[in-house]
């Protein structure tokens, strides 16, 4: 498979390429490896939690596992994948030859890999990997309570990954602002590119706060600084909440593209959706301390009001996508199946977010399994399904081949079953009083069988992911050839070859709307 022209041959050529497509694929491969590792850890944790008592791991190992699972999935998997999608697709969607600053992107992709190696390297040190969760609150993460190099390597690794993400977001943002094809005004940007634009804004404005928070951990660990723990919470969540939407908007954008193409029409309410994305992103910078309702240190009313207001923007997005299907001709191909499952499942993550946005409800549900269920419904039942919609949709563009349809359908149904079995019982577990980040829990009525169902669901999810992996490996070389535009795409990436050449386009069609290829097809049939 030839993805692009490389500087040199083989693995070294691929590792040193600065082409945005190779950079994006390199990030994707790295994120996929970290996802496999993080997913395997989740399976070990669910095995431990299947019954009360300790059977599989020690408490210490469990603490390393949940810390590295969460850190992987957020810093090394979902955020990089969100940006990798943009790094690959944005230049193609706006008719550009590459991202700006290609060598900076090359550099950033390796920073991320280094960051991941540093986090995982902690397992090889005397005290093991970091154990204070993906949040590493102070003073728990200082040298008194988390001795050993594992936590230092975690800090270094997250710092590098975060820097990589800021750099990538910056170049993607600049590319959108400066490299658009003739005729492509801001209100003719494809929806996915708009979603990526707001994602990059959030990354550029929100993520530096994490570097400062990490600096506080270093100051506490190595320079004896007494850090105000509430200040750390503010800095961390000022990054942490926008991060949630960085792991959501690009995938939502992918679903919006899929919904349009497989409904055979332009998106209904394009302007409303763009406005909603901008409002959503702006609003999401004002909600961080809803993670701190139970601290007694923040004005809860303010953060309850800003957090609840976000439901209006989410509602607009649902309206526009449902209306697009309602008024279109729906084809139930695999990308569309995943897109619809995303919409159906994400709403559960959304409404449970509205519930925890209410301080009095959060006083009970905060730090419980209810919250674990909530964010896995947004990130896994939501963003992951949307990512799969995008992968099944764009795989033919990247490789020139389809992903296998029959195996794809097995993957889909197993994943729907596994996901809901795993994460739905968590809402009840949290309500009943089960707290997070525990290897063991009391043998109380309800807790045992609900945990068992959740663990069984995790096993099904694991099988589904293996089916997908197998499908990718088989389809890379043996998949059905797809041609340049197998789905009847609307946006410019479908106007070039699959895979695209190094410079992306030999010629560009005129851009008169946010669906230039659909314009061309409609002109021809007139």
């Amino acid at each position, binding site marked *: 498979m030839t993805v692009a022209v490389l500087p040199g041959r083989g693995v070294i050529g691929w590792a040193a390429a600065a082409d945005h497509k190779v950079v994006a694929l390199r990030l994707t491969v790295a994120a996929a490896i970290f996802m496999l590792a993080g997913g395997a850890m989740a399976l070990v944790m669910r095995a431990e939690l299947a019954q009360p008592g300790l059977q599989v791991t020690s408490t210490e190992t469990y603490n390393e596992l949940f810390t590295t699972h969460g850190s992987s999935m957020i810093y090394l998997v979902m955020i990089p994948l969100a940006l990798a999608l943009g790094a690959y697709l944005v230049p193609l969607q706006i008719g550009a030859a590459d991202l700006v600053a290609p060598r900076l992107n090359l550099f950033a992709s390796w920073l991320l890999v280094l960051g991941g190696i540093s986090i995982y390297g902690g397992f090889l040190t005397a005290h093991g990997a970091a154990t204070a969760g993906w949040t590493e609150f102070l003073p728990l993460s200082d040298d008194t309570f988390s001795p050993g190099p594992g936590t230092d390597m975690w800090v270094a690794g997250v710092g590098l990954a975060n820097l990589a993400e800021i750099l990538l977001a910056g170049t993607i943002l600049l590319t959108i602002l400066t490299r658009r094809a003739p005729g492509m005004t801001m209100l003719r940007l494809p929806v996915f590119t708009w979603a990526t634009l707001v994602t990059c804004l959030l990354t550029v404005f929100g993520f530096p706060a994490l570097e400062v928070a990490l600096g506080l951990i270093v100051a506490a660990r190595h320079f004896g600084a007494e850090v105000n723990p509430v200040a750390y919470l503010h800095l961390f969540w000022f990054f942490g909440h926008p991060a949630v939407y960085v792991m959501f908007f690009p995938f939502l954008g992918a679903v919006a593209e899929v919904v349009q193409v497989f409904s055979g029409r332009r998106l209904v309410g394009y302007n409303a959706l763009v406005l909603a994305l901008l409002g959503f992103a702006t609003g999401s910078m004002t909600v961080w301390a809803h993670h701190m309702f139970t601290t007694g240190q923040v004005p809860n009313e303010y953060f309850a009001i800003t957090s609840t207001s976000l439901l209006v923007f989410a509602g607009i997005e649902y309206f526009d996508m449902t209306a697009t299907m309602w008024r279109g001709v729906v084809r139930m191909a695999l990308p569309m199946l995943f897109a619809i499952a995303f919409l159906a499942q994400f709403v559960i993550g959304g409404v449970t977010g509205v*519930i925890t946005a209410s301080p009095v409800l959060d006083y009970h549900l905060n730090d419980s399994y209810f919250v674990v269920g909530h964010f896995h419904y947004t990130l896994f039942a939501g963003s992951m399904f949307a990512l799969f919609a995008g992968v099944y949709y764009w795989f033919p563009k990247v490789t020139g081949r389809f992903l296998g349809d029959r195996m794809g359908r097995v993957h889909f149904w197993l994943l729907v079953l596994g996901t809901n079995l795993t994460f739905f019982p968590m809402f009840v577990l949290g309500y009943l*009083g089960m707290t997070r980040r525990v290897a063991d829990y009391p043998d109380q009525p309800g807790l045992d069988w609900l945990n068992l169902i959740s663990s069984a669901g995790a096993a099904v999810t694991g099988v589904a992911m293996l089916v997908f992996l197998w499908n990718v490996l088989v389809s890379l070389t043996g998949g059905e050839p797809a041609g340049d535009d197998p789905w009847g795409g609307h946006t410019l990436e479908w106007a070039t070859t699959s895979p695209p050449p190094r410079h992306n386009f030999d010629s560009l069609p005129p851009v008169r709307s946010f669906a230039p290829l659909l314009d061309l097809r409609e002109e021809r049939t007139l």
Partner: protein
Amino acid sequence: MGGDTTRGAFDALFSAYFVVTTAAVLLVLVALAAAVLRGRRRGARRGGDPSRLEIGYVLLLSTIAVALMAVTVTTELNVDARRPAGVQVQVVASQWRWTFQTEQAGHRATTFNRLVVPRGTTIAFHIRSRDVIHSMWIPEVRFKRYAFPDRTTTYDLEFPSTGTFEGLCAQFCGLDHDRMRFTVQVVDAAGFAAWLEAHAS
């Protein structure tokens, strides 16, 4: 909304939210199913401009959001309002143990991993930590609060019924976090006075 207790306020508010959110999920599922089914029927399409419908929909959503904000903020201000308390409890959380110093009318008793409180009266809790951040959670009264090492935080709780309940640390605090549990024994006023007198130091 709801009673004056954290438990009563939570239960009433949660019921309201449960109805609204369940209705929203069902509505989305029905709308998606309808759109897919209609979209799969070939033939008649199009129809008028939906932007008026969308504006109406946004107004409806905003109304729901404002209603939720109103009820949630009112409940929160009521729950968080300080009340005169006859019983004071100093809570010290540490890796991995709870220390409660319970005081009423000059009598003071210290207990570990066991909290004894009277039913039906306002109790003021003053919580702090000796080391890392912890969080004191009593699921029975639907309430938890962080314990910080550098500051004391105060809140009121009222226990509506007698009995023995579970308490636990909700914020991850290191190796034995999952074993940092305590029991809450809620007794009647006379029983509490007798207990306090017997255990006063």
